[in-house]
């Protein structure tokens, strides 16, 4: 029902900007545009990042699957493989710790006046992404196809109704948050 809306390119650019604006506002209010908070999470001293991510996962999981049941949203799971997702994810993690921001939070950090993010980090990410574009033909012949699992979701993999996974997973994730609070973290 929104397809005419989705195909209006200039309108979509404005919507993207608006969604980004709110996203950036939330990231800044959540304190996750801070190097100290992000690295604090990676050192298990500060659990702000996990609290925000887990709450967003639970809310989004229920919301997006609910909208999908109503026919208002479609899922777009990403294609992956062990060579791509696991190896790339570990490399990302190393960079994440060295830089102390991720691609979304660095944009928020720049907006907040963090010059290490702006001058050092941003140029690094752009450079790194460009290097990857050059390495891509080689990697796509060698490592990336290893252990391919397609663009699957867990409900598809286990052939169950999504809610069979969402309900217990949401309960477990809320339990994790409750435990973090109880432990004073």
């Amino acid at each position, binding site marked *: 029902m929104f397809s005419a809306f989705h195909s209006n390119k200039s309108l979509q650019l404005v919507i*993207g900007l608006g*969604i980004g604006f709110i996203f950036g506002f939330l990231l*800044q*209010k959540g304190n996750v545009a801070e190097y100290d908070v992000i690295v604090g999470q990676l050192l298990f001293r500060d659990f702000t990042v996990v609290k925000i991510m887990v709450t967003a996962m639970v809310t989004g999981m229920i919301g997006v699957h609910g909208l999908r049941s109503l026919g208002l949203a479609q899922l777009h799971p990403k294609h992956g493989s062990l060579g791509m997702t696991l190896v790339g994810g570990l490399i*990302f993690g190393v960079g*994440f710790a*060295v830089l102390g921001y991720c691609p979304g939070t660095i944009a928020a950090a720049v*907006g907040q006046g963090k010059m290490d993010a702006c001058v050092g980090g941003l140029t690094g990410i752009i450079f*790194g992404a460009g290097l990857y574009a050059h390495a891509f033909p080689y990697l796509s012949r060698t490592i990336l196809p290893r252990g391919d699992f397609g663009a699957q979701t867990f409900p598809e993999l286990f052939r169950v109704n999504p809610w069979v996974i969402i309900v217990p997973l949401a309960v477990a994730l809320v339990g994790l948050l409750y435990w973090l609070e109880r432990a004073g973290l």
Partner: protein
Amino acid sequence: MLTFLTLTEWSPYAVGIGIGLLSCVAFVLSDKPIGCSTAFARTSGMLEELVRGRGKLLDMAYYRQFVPEIDWEWMLVLGVVLGACASALLSGEFRVEWVPSLWAATFGSELLPRLVTAFCGGIIMGFGARWAGGCTSGHGISGTLQLAVSGWLAVVAFFAGGGLTASIIYSLGG
């Protein structure tokens, strides 16, 4: 009435619920999951295009897949900069800072070591984000909430690699 907009900090749960709802809005209004890292790849492509020209660039398989142009996600990342800036200005937290305090407490407040480290970390992360096909937003939030196998595997790898690396860096610094 709008004083909450000027607070320096919101509860992480309020922020998380906000991001979850915003993801729902993105799916309905744009039929897209929130993500950030392809914007950096497209920017890199646009910069390389200035040097080598469009034809050469589109000979590259990667840029045929991720055409260097300003798209929805690129505008989203621009929006993040502006939204964070607005939030920081409203709360009086906007301030030019060159060296983060946790870094300074361990490695000193000299500018150059932090900038070089941030640049190197950026290269590794930019490379890894495109290798993995997404970042903490695209995989970590949007992928996991869709229950995508790739999203959950990626988020485990991000935090495993990040946790290990951060503890090595900070144990070196004493």
